[in-house]
Each structure stands twice: as C-alpha cells, then as structure tokens.
C-alpha cells in the first residue's frame, strides 16, 4: 500500500510522537524547549509540503517528490488535489503561528507542555485529513480526531475554573454534535447503502439528491448539516462559542477559531452545491438563511460584550455568516463554467485566507494582552500610548474583521458580496452590508478605548521577540494583501483548478 499521499499527516504524527518522547527526557525546568522543537518541526513540515506539492516558486523541486498537481490522487476514500493542499497549507501555517503564541503563553507556566503540543498537532492532523476525506466514515474519524483533542485543550488550564467550564461545555456540545452527525451518516447509509462520497454524489439512482422522495435520506442530510453547523458555530448553533472562547487558553482559541471551522467549510464546499447541481436552489436557500442568521445574531450579540474574547467569539459567528454568504453564492460547476473561473469559489477561498490571517492576528494580540491580565475592552485603555505597535496591529486586525479598506478583510467581503450579487441574492447582500455597518460599532469601541482613553494603571509589558515579530509580519500581511490581493487570488484560482474533476 502506498502511503505517500498521506505524508503531511504522517509527518505531523511523527512530530507529535517526537514531542511526547522528548518530553520524558527533559528536566522539569527546561520544558519550554518543547515549544521550539514543535515550531521548528512545523516549519520543516511546511517546507516539505511546499516542496512536495509544487508551486510556482519551486517548480523544479516538485519533481523530487510526488506530482499531485496534475492528477488528483485518490486513495481509499482519501483525495489529494490542489483544493485539499490549499487547505492543508492554511492549517500548517496557522499551527506554526499558534505554536509561537503557545511558547509565549507557557513561558512562565511549566505544566504538561508535551501533551499540549502533541494534542495541538493531532487537531491539525484531523483538520488536514478532513479536507481530504471522500468517504463519510473517514470524514467522521477525522472529524473526531480534530474535535476530541480540542475538548482537552479547552480545559487545559486546569486550575482555572473558567477553563474547566469551557472544556466541559465544549465536550458536551461536541459529543452531541458527533452523535447527531454519526446518526445522520448512518441514516444516509441506510438509505443509499454506501458511504463513499464519490458514489453518493455521482449521477444515477443512488445519490444524495433524491431528498424529496426519501424522508430517511432527508433526515440524514439534515442531521449531517446540523452537525457541521455546530462545528463552525453558525447561528442558531452558536451558543457554545462565547463560554468556550472566554474560558479556553487563548492560544487554543486561536487555533479553534481557525482550523476546525475552515476544515468544515472546505468539506461543505466539496459536497454541497458543488457536487449537487440538481438541488442547488435548496442548498442556496439553506446556506443563505444560516448566513443571514449568523451575521445578524453575531453582530447584535457582540455589541454589548465587554470581554475581548467573548466579543471576538460573537464576531467570529458573524464572520462565519459572511463565509456562508459566499457558500450560498457559489454555483454548481459545469464544464463551461468550472470552479476555477467562478467568483463564488474564489471569494470563499480568498475570504478563508483573510479570515485565518485576521483571526490569528487578533488572537495573537489578545494572547499578549491576556498575559498582562488585560481581558476586557476597558483594559485596553491607553494601549496606543504604552505600546503603539501592539495597538496598531490590533487596530489593523479589527479593521480587517470590520472590512475596512485597504485591508484584506475588505477585499474579501467585496469579493463575497460581488459573488452573491451575481447569484442575485440581493436581500442577503444588503443585509450583509448593513451588518458591516453595525459591526463597526463594537470594533471601534475597542479602537476608541485604545486610542482615546488614558491608561488607568501602569502595567509593564513582557517583551518576547518571537511573538512580536510574528504579529508584525501577519499584521502587515493583512495590509499588503489588502492593497495587492492578486497573489492570493491566484493561489485560490490554482487551488480550484480541476476541482471535482475525477472526484
């Protein structure tokens, strides 16, 4: 059996085991070395994946490894195409960034770091498998691999009762989600007799779109969709979000907000609408309603939050709403209009990159602030005076979330709205645009707290070069891609080349 298509996941597994083994041999005071090992490991994996899957930047080196770019390789319900690789790269980059935050977070806390890094790597591995799965069983296994370590991680600060609450809450909701999902999958299997997605979506008598004629199938699909909506925290399935975000350690939240959500969106993109042209109006309506609810509820609930992490949690619900607006705007690809030329697909992929970068920046700043005991909007007062650089980067990330030009979030939203307009979802776009105006209110509340108010008490900043450098790099990336978005759009387009062909 050729395991080579699995090599990013296998490398991650190796890294996790390496971290655990080294953890045994390290004396108690030197555990922070694990963070550096994990960071270096992830960087090496990123480089290897980059070389293996080939890009414009290393055309020659790609030949050394495998050549997946031209013919998507399908392997036992496992598909590696440019689309999946695009997502894998996002997860790996996010993991690297989050590890830099984590090494800062654990700087003065020596507890159980080996387990922490290993669990985080497992989450990333689950995300990475999820976007490649083309069988409902593999999908469920990778979904669990992605979720279960996160329950532990959410409760990782074991002496903090809020963290315990977050862990328990996330676990209970997550368990119900998995149960619903699995039940949905079993109903689909009962109705159609297969879990192979390629057969489920292929034209013919056995496929996923004969919903109207088959109530068992309909219920199964609804259950699967609800399970997915729970994981991405789309309203009305979002109630776990604020408590989990508030209680969980901030580096964990920064990955929780990015990895699993993006992975599930990737799965949704692959299955619904894209491979179901017959029932396109139904999916469009479904995702449009989910999007409208998420945007509106997220923004309205965020208005009154005083805790930064709760505020970002609700803002994250609204962000998922914008992404789902893009999902609703895509059209089933046809030979004449394949996915790579449709602005709906491009818009969603672009916005996912924008979302990942922006959330990572925002949570990086919140990690930094949290280490000084600053957790509320009020505690940001005077930040622009005491550390102008940090305030500037935080402002960039908030503005990018709000969709203010010339930041990456603006280009992303512009793209999404243009796509939805093209699909004639006028009401949704107008709702989205009005929502962006409402959102300004709470994003600017933080900005005004940082810039207008005087600091109440002096707090000293812990200088830590890696996190500061990382924040500057991704903060400025938000600006640079916002001004010149073409590179990322090209990436998104190349990820959509041959999307669903041979799937």
């Amino acid at each position, binding site marked *: 059996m050729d395991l080579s298509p699995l090599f990013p996941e296998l490398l991650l597994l190796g890294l996790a085991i390496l971290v655990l083994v080294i953890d045994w041999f390290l004396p108690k005071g030197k555990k922070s070395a694990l963070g550096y090992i994990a960071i270096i490991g992830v960087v090496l994996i990123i480089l290897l994946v980059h070389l293996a899957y080939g890009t414009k930047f290393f055309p020659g080196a790609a030949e050394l490894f495998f050549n997946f770019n031209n013919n998507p390789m399908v392997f036992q319900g496992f598909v590696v195409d440019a689309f999946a690789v695009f997502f894998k790269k996002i997860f790996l980059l996010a993991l690297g960034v989050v590890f830099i935050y984590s090494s800062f977070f654990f700087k003065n806390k020596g507890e159980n770091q080996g387990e922490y890094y290993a669990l985080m790597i497992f989450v990333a591995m689950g995300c990475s498998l999820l976007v490649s799965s083309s069988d409902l069983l593999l999908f469920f296994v990778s979904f669990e691999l992605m979720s279960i370590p996160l329950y532990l991680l959410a409760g990782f600060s074991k002496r903090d009762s809020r963290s315990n609450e977050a862990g328990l809450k996330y676990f209970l909701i997550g368990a119900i989600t998995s149960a619903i999902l699995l039940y949905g999958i079993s109903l689909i299997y009962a109705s159609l007799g297969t879990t192979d997605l390629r057969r489920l979506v292929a034209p013919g008598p056995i496929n996923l779109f004969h919903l109207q004629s088959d109530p068992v199938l309909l219920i199964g699909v609804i259950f699967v969709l609800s399970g997915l909506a729970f994981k991405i925290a789309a309203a009305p399935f979002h109630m776990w979000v604020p408590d989990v975000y508030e209680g969980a350690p901030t580096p964990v939240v920064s990955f929780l907000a990015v990895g699993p959500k993006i992975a599930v969106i990737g799965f949704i993109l692959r299955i619904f609408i894209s491979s179901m042209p017959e029932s396109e109006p139904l999916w469009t309506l479904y995702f449009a309603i989910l999007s409208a609810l998420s945007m509106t509820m997220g923004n309205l609930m965020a208005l009154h939050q005083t805790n930064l992490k709760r505020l970002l949690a609700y803002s994250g619900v609204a962000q998922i709403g914008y992404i789902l607006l893009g999902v609703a705007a895509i059209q089933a690809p046809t030979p004449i209009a394949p996915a790579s030329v449709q602005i709906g697909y491009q818009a969603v992929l672009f916005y996912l990159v924008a979302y990942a970068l922006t959330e990572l920046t925002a949570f990086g700043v919140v990690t930094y602030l949290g280490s000084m005991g600053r957790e509320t909007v009020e505690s940001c007062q005077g930040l622009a005076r005491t550390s102008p650089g940090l305030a500037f980067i935080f402002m960039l990330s908030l503005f990018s979330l709000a969709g203010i030009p010339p930041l990456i979030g603006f280009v992303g939203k*512009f793209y999404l709205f243009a796509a939805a307009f093209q699909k004639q979802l006028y009401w949704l776009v107008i709702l989205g645009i009005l929502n962006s105006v409402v959102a300004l209110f709470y994003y*600017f509340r933080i900005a005004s707290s940082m810039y207008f108010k005087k600091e109440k008490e002096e707090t000293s900043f812990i200088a830590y070069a890696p996190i500061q450098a990382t924040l500057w790099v991704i903060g400025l990336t938000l600006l640079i891609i916002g001004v010149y978005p073409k590179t990322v759009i090209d990436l998104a387009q190349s990820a959509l080349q041959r999307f669903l062909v041979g799937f």
Partner: protein
Amino acid sequence: MDASTLTLFYALPILAAAAIFCVPKEKVGWVRALAVLAGLGTLAISIFVYATYDPNGPQWQFETYQPWIPSLHIGYHLAVDGISVPMVLLTGILNLAAILISFSVKERVKEYFIFLLLVEAGVAGSFVSLDLFFFIIFYELASIPIYFLIGMWGSDGQQASRSWVTKREFSALKLLIYLQLGGALILTGFFLLYLFAPQAGLPYSTFDFIELSRANFGQIANFSRIVFPLLFVAFGIEAGLFPFHTWLPDGHSAAPTAVSMLLAGVLLKMGAYGMIRFAAGLMPDAGKLWLPLFGVIAVINILYGAWCALKQTDIKYIIAYSSVSHMGIVFLGLASQNIIGWSGALFQMFSHGIVTALLFALAGILYEKTHTRNVMNLGGLAPQMPFVAVCFVLGGLASLGLPGMSGFVAEFLTFMGTYGWMKGLMIVSTLGLVLTALYILLTVKKVFFGPLNDAYKDETYKNFWWEKVPVAGLIMITLLFGIMPSLLTALSQNSIGPMIRALSGMAH
C-alpha cells in the same frame, strides 16, 4: 512623469506618514518637516496638473492603467478631466494649509500627523481614481482616520456632554456611522452598476468607470430610477444633503482646526464630486427625472442651513451650518441641468472649499488665543488681533458672495443657471443670500467690534508664521479666482458639455 504624476499625488502623503512612523516621537521638528514636505509636494503636483491640463485636448489626461484583480475586472485606473482638475488643485492647496495650521497641535504630534496625512492621501486619491473599487478604498481612507483625529485631538466645546461619552467621542462616532452608512450605500450602488453592466450593453461586468460610462443604463427598465437616488443620497450623506447633514455640525465643531478645514473643504466636495461623476455621469436618464426633487431639497439646504447658522452661538457651529447652506448652492446648480448652473456648482465647490477652510482656520486661531468659541463671550477683539479680524472680515465677505471674491462668481453662475431652469426656486433661494449676509455680519460684529470683553483687555496676541501663511494664501486665492473666474470655468466646459447633453437626452 505623465503616468506616475497622479500616483505620486496621493502617494506622497502616505510615504510621509510611513516616514513619520519611523521617526522617534520626541523629534517634533522632523515630523513637522516631513509633513510640510509632503504638503509642498502635493501642492506642486496639483499646480502642475492644473497648469498642464489641456481643456481642448482629450477629456481624460494623465491617464495610467494597470490590471489589478482581473477576475473582477478591477484595474488601477487614474486620470483627471475638467471636473476633477479643480478638485485636485483644491486638495493640493488645502493639504498644505491644513498641515501648516496643525503646528498648533502640541500633544502626540507624531500620531496626529500620521492620521492627518492619511486623510489627505484618501481625499487626493478619490478625486483621481477612475475605478470604483479604488474609489471606495480612498473614500474609507479619507473618512476612517477622521474618527481618530476627532476623538483624540478634538475639543469638547460648549455643548453639554452626554453621560456615557464625551462630546468629541460622540461626534466622532456619529460622523463615523454616517460616513460608513454612506459608504455602504455607495458600495451597494457600485455593485448594482457592476452587475447590470452586461445588460446595459457592455461585454462583461466591470468596475472601471470609463467602460461603465459607455454603457446605457437607461435601457434596463427601472434600473436607473432606483440606483440613481440611491447613489445620489449615499454621496449626499457625505456632502451634507438635508436631512442627512446632522453629522456635519457636530463633527466639524468637535474636530481639531485642520480636520474641520479638510472636512468642510474637501470631504464635502468628495460627496458632491461623487454625485456628479457616478450618479449623474452614469445614469443621466434618471437624473432628468430626479434632479428637480433634489433641487427642492437643495433650496431647503440653503435656507435651513442659513437659518440654523443664524441661531448658533458657537463660532464653529456657525461656520458648519454655513457649509450646509453653501453646499445647497452646489446641489441647486447640479439640479439646474445646464452648463451655466453646473459651472456654478463646480465653481462653488472650489470656492466654498477655500473660503470655509479659511474661516475654520481663523476660528481655530481665535480659539487658541481666547479659549472660547462662544461669540457671546467675545467682542471688540479687532484692535487686539488686527490680522485675524481683517482676514475674518475678508473671509466672511467671500462667504456671503461679495463681487470680486470667488463666492460671488459661484453664486452668480448658479442662480443664473437656475433662473433659466426654474424661476421660482431661484427666487426663493436668493433669500438664503440675505440670511447669509445677516449671520456673517452679526458674527463679525459680535466677535470683533463693540465693547471689548474685560478678560482680553491686557492680552497681546502674536500670530505665528504658520498661521499667517495659510490664511493669507487662502485669501489671495479667493481674490484671484474671484477676479479671474475663467481660470476655472474654462477648464471644465468641455467636460461638462457632454454630460449636460446626456442629461437633456441629446446624447443618445
């Protein structure tokens, strides 16, 4: 030089802002020097553009084009025509004036100049960009930093603050929400134009203005009838159109002097420019239908603004409401749909920009010296501060339209244009001139003449060079364009002509 001129025009302030970001904050002199350099540079470029623009040549000059997001047909497209050249000149002049007047800022100088230069870059960019995507970017770049400028360096004024927020934060937030709502509506309108372009005769959807202007949106049933008022009102929010003008007095009065100058001087003009360029320029057929209604609103603007100005006691509120009134003249000129009226409107945009910036600069200087803006507390200051008094009288006269000043030419042309279109409106609106004369002269009398308030008896006031230079410069410009109006009107004739013909239905 030709291709990169306009890029440099908006990029200089951004470059200066980036350079200031790297200067340590103790080095105030460096910060100011960099800002002044950027101001001088933009002024030089704007004069260069103004002087070399050939009104008899092709409509679009200094054109530069670079594909940006090909999948959405977005390009980096800059050019100027006879309508934007006066605005470019105005921007160049006010940029430098605002930077100089900002030398009075003592707190957090470095951050202040960064934000100010970003506003200037945004304004400059929006007047020269011909791509709707880039227009939105520059629009936001011009409006977002103003929030910070007002919130951080603004004044709380004499108005009682609300319990939950100080006056200047309230004003900043109000301005932000109004301008962002305007921005959101503009975005919606632009998307509609983008989406419907193929139905209007274009081969594909595009955000490029020149390509969109070749489309005939009138041929889509009901399209322009809905989108025209949407865009017109969206830009009207920024231009101070009644009843969306209420952010304007609050914002102007709370803003630091230089920001008031830019807000009244060029930001309002951005709104009016957008109305001309995007609403009337792309959907002339609907313009014919809707503009009479906007003519009526324009008259309300003129009269209501003047009436409010008459009732105010805060000198910055007086000038702010006078801006509402004077922007009404711009809208009236646009509504008249003839060449004379439009020339008047364009002239008023330029002239009001200069005059109101002058008045705000003087109000700022006055506040610096006396620490009050309430005209009731002032009085008899003419002997104490002769320079300010003389300049304020001159500025006031320009504002009320004394012949020989630029305001006169603008009002004369506008009313003449309106007379040819709708005599009743013109006659009603001239009542605004009477009110204007009344509030200007009353303010001058209360502040500079009459008995001297004892508090200011023993004070002697010195004017710094950075106060004198911009004020004197602005007065010279008003006089120059008042005496030789053809310096501006000749520029725009050939650009206005085709638009007027389209409005009157002769183009198609």
